[in-house]
């Protein structure tokens, strides 16, 4: 067991994957000597050479597009997008090319690409540095989207993503980068929890609280307060945004009958809509109240001095809890 921040857990996960397979290579802006603006790739270029940790020109479509070519040629590229807000220039390569290569070639070509994207707000930064773009990707057939909420998952899931033959968008909860947690780095990759499984973090019978990434911590805080008030909350860390582990979710909902989904992205058209709709389809007669969403508001990300009011917090979750309990 090691106590690691999420940053260093990912770093160690990358190192282990690179050591295990010489076809794993890293590409992105400033990931070499600098080690990335968040230092996630620190030391890796020195260890593995600048042919495996490649500083790229400043062009995101170029990064993803050439990663596709590299993958076609047998590599397992792991590309870093410096911040969430800079992924959109690569959108065509992601949704029209990366997501479809296997489909259009009827299985002949697969693209084992991992796109690492630090995402979400709460770090007091300027415009375009606090985005939650997951809904665009989880709505795109052919992509897999996962997010780790703690160091343990960060370490294992990045490796699972890299060794997945499907392209994976790996969303890193930027504002939790420096949060520490225990990681058993000695275990075997095959013994890690499956990449697409949700994880039940707390046990409770009154309401299910579903989240992922940076707001898992927020959900846990809210659950603690509720517990103190005698309301039992089952917190689920989705971990996988596409596919959604409906089995784990439905099992919980059948027990609690009440659900709140929490994420930072704007509510309308966000992942919470899909989760709520799926729960309605699957557990209609079990539901005692509508699935509610506690999310970022339907605005562009606001100026950072007021971002605390934009981001879901424990209070807003507790308000929603009050509502679902009142049905």
């Amino acid at each position: 067991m090691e106590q690691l921040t999420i940053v260093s857990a990912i770093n160690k996960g990358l190192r282990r994957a690179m050591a295990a397979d010489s076809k794993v290579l890293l590409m992105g802006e400033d990931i070499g000597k600098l080690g990335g603006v968040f230092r996630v790739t620190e030391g890796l270029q020195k260890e593995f050479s600048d042919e495996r940790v490649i500083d790229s020109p400043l062009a995101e479509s170029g990064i993803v597009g050439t990663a596709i070519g590299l993958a076609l040629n047998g590599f397992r590229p792991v590309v870093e997008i410096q911040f969430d807000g800079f992924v959109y220039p690569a959108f065509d390569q992601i949704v029209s090319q990366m997501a479809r290569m296997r489909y259009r070639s009827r299985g002949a070509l697969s693209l084992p690409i991992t796109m690492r994207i630090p995402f979400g707000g709460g770090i007091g930064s300027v415009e375009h540095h606090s985005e939650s773009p997951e809904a665009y990707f989880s709505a795109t057939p052919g992509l897999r989207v996962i997010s780790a909420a703690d160091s343990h998952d960060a370490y294992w899931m990045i490796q699972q993503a890299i060794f997945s033959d499907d392209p994976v968008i790996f969303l890193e909860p930027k504002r939790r980068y420096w949060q520490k947690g225990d990681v058993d780095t000695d275990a075997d990759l095959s013994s890690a929890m499956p990449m697409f499984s949700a994880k039940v973090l707390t046990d409770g019978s009154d309401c299910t609280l579903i989240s992922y990434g940076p707001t898992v911590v927020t959900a846990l805080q809210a659950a603690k307060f509720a517990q103190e008030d005698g309301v039992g909350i089952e917190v689920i860390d989705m971990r996988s945004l596409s596919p959604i582990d409906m089995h784990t979710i439905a099992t919980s909902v059948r027990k609690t009958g009440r659900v709140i989904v929490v994420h930072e992205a704007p509510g309308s058209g966000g992942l919470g809509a899909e989760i709520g709709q799926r729960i309605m389809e699957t557990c209609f007669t079990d539901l005692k109240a509508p699935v509610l969403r506690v999310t970022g508001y339907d605005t562009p990300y606001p100026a950072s001095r007021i971002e605390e009011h934009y981001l879901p917090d424990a209070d807003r979750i507790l308000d929603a809890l009050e509502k679902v309990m009142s049905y």
Partner: protein
Amino acid sequence: MDGFDSVVQLLDSTGSPVIDSHYSSALDNSSLLALYRDMVLVRKLDEQATALQRQGELGLWAPLIGQEAAQIGSGRALAQRDYAFATYREHGVAWCRGIDPVDMLRFWRGTMHQAWDANLHRLYGYQVIIGAHALHATGYAMGAYLSGRSGTGNSETDQAVVAYFGDGAMSEGDVNESFVFAATYQAPIVFFCQNNQWAISEPTKRQSRIPLVQRAEGFGLRGIRVDGNDVIACHAVTAEALDRARSGGGPTLIEAVTYRMGAHTTSDDPTKYRDGSDDELWRSRDPIDRLRIYLRANEVLNDTFQSDLDAEATSLAERMRIGCRELPDPDPLSMFENVYCAPDARLDEQRSELKSILAKMGD
């Protein structure tokens, strides 16, 4: 070449050889005959596909007529181990890579997005998104170098990559980013731009007021402009650029000046935007005619070869007609395959749903 600056030409439009200060043809007579045969057959292939579309057998077709020399000249310069990425119009290149013409039709008939084994033929399938594949080609080329399959100095095994695209594609961000990446990493790639004067209804000058080949200098690539209707020059120029790429000499942009003699696609009506005044000029520069004249004049091409070839073309067309009509429609349930490598519960549900609908319909 009339109206175009500094264009490499080895055979002019009258079929007369041209001396170039740098390039010469390495092709013997039988190679020239082979190129001639290729061009005649792909033109026939193209005509037949166009006819099949008119008959309702294909949803769409993008004719290559006029661009045979550019595609065959460059396509035959590729070694088997090289890899090519093309657009929707490179039937001639596909021909050179050994794709069965009937397989080409699958895409246009709508039975498959990609019909052939890209790794086997070392040709990626038809790409529709303008310019996107230029980056794939560049990444593939970077990979060839990184994995020691290019730039080693072994001229038997070193590989190169070719990316085909049109004059219109030169405006897309992706193509320009490809130039950046190719130059930065000195990737073993040749960008082969067929300037056929038109991007659907827009003349090349809508994309650039200066010759497209000059874009190369701006990115630190080598640039060569070639008569795209001269199959010998296209072959020579491409062969040299490939050699250079394979040996670690860096990327090249080739602008092949040619002309789209037909419509953009079978859905297009060129009379809306071009008055036909150029058509005659370009007919006089026909890529096949000039080689025929040359080969005839030099007694390389005789009547027997020509009539055999005509017969071969006729039977190719017939094979296409029959093959096209026989192409099986895909199993509707196959639409759920290969979205992912890993199994997917949601898709399984949806497959079951469609399966039961189909079963009901079957009743």
